[in-house]
């Protein structure tokens, strides 16, 4: 036993990397199903908030992420665009991450093509603007002046979906898909509390605990945390996709990591011996 614990302490970490890699690859390749995805009240809050919006409403979708967190944010972004377009809600996309523009364009075009929505009429992507909180604050004064052109360079005055949109008073809800700064926290601080626009958020798992207080205080109406949150939301939207496919790999890797943490602690405790007097 002592040798085993000593072996564990000296274990080359690359074996653990290899095991995690195999545990992620196997379920994706063979597609076995471990457990059903059960939506939490946080995901239901996200879904219900969109369902409550009347048809023809206008929603600002802030896709504040880049390829670094695409695995977590893209599935929830795609599912949110699906639900919004299915309900005939107009989408105005913005990105405060420079590399988020191609992803924002991709999500809106993919869903627009699938659900027969027209660019410029049913949705538009205003693109990226430098300035973080200043952009949010400036949008409160004038969205067309903050974003004079969309991501293609077309003046917003010539885009039908932007007609009548002056500031947050014409926005019925904000959907924040966020990877960190600037993101959900800044939208809550600069827009929700100041302009009283309802908001829901889909965030990376690593930042999710930071936003629970906002959910508890009612500043957010729904919250999706990481890939698990995205999978729960996909179940509610009725179209299991990327996040749902990744959940078995996620579960197996989690079980293995939890097992290794326990094993690591046992090995560590075996090392500590009380000093004999």
């Amino acid at each position, binding site marked *: 036993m002592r040798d085993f614990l000593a072996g564990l302490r000296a274990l080359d970490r690359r074996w653990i990397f290899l095991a995690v890699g195999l545990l992620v*690859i196997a379920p994706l390749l063979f597609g076995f199903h471990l457990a059903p995805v059960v939506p939490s009240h946080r995901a239901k809050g996200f879904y219900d908030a969109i369902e409550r919006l009347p048809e023809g409403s206008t929603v600002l979708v802030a896709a504040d992420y880049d390829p670094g967190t695409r695995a977590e944010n893209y599935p929830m972004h795609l599912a949110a665009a699906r639900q919004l377009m299915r309900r005939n809600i107009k989408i105005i996309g913005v990105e405060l991450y420079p590399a988020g523009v191609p992803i924002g364009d991709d999500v809106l075009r993919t869903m627009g093509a699938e659900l027969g929505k027209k660019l410029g009429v049913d949705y538009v992507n205003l693109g990226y603007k430098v300035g973080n909180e200043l952009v949010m604050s400036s949008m409160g004064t004038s969205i067309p002046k903050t974003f004079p052109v969309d991501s293609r360079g077309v003046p917003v005055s010539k885009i039908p979906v932007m007609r009548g949109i002056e500031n947050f008073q014409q926005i019925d809800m904000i959907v924040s898909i966020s990877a960190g700064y600037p993101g959900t926290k800044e939208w809550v601080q600069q827009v929700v509390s100041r302009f009283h626009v309802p908001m829901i958020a889909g965030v990376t798992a690593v930042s999710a605990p930071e936003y629970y207080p906002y959910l508890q205080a009612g500043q957010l109406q729904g919250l999706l945390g*990481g890939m698990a949150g995205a999978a729960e939301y996909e179940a509610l939207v009725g179209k299991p996709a990327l996040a749902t496919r990744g959940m078995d790999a996620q579960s197996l890797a989690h079980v293995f990591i939890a097992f290794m943490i326990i094993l690591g602690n046992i090995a560590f405790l075996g090392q500590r011996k009380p000093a004999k007097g």
Partner: protein
Amino acid sequence: MHLSSDIGVWIGAFLTLGIFSFLYKDNPVYKFCEHLFVGISAGYYVVLTMISSVYPNMIQPLFTNFTHDRNYFLLIPLALGIMLFSRFFPRGDWLSRWPIAFILGVYPALRITGFAQGDLVEQVHGTMLPLWVPGDAGTTINNWLLVGGLLTTLIFFFFSKEHKGALGGSARVGIYFLMISFGASYGYTVMARVSLLIGRVMFLLDDWLGLLRF
């Protein structure tokens, strides 16, 4: 198996595997991928900022639309922006302090007011909860936990008096609440990192190799 014919996917796959090779040990391929990423990112951000912000928000209104909409206020950010570049000239670098002072003045003001409105007031309001909800034992327990956790954690960070007696006991309970929150944060962090791995593995298996059937 259906290999991708898209050159972009092949480049992406090579760069992904190059970065993953660091898990074995540091190597020249990893370094190449890392440097490529840094260089391309810097170039991309500069060009995107010019196209998406500087040109439509300043250059175009000033030099193209100026005859229609004489927005003289735009001359101020133009001048401040040019002054920032004075840092490259030792004799005039003091000029850059003005725009920096402007940024330093605006940003804290914006963030402090945002924090006060969005976090401080709303969060204090959010903890004013009924400690007895008739017919709803779950909410009652939750509210007790939230208020208790908040108070004991605040006591833990109260250093004006030695943590002894009731104060010490409360601070110890506060530590347990903190530990639970750290554990939850760590769990979420693990989930985030595994998710990113899954995303890359999906890209390699599906977009590149065309192996996924589900």
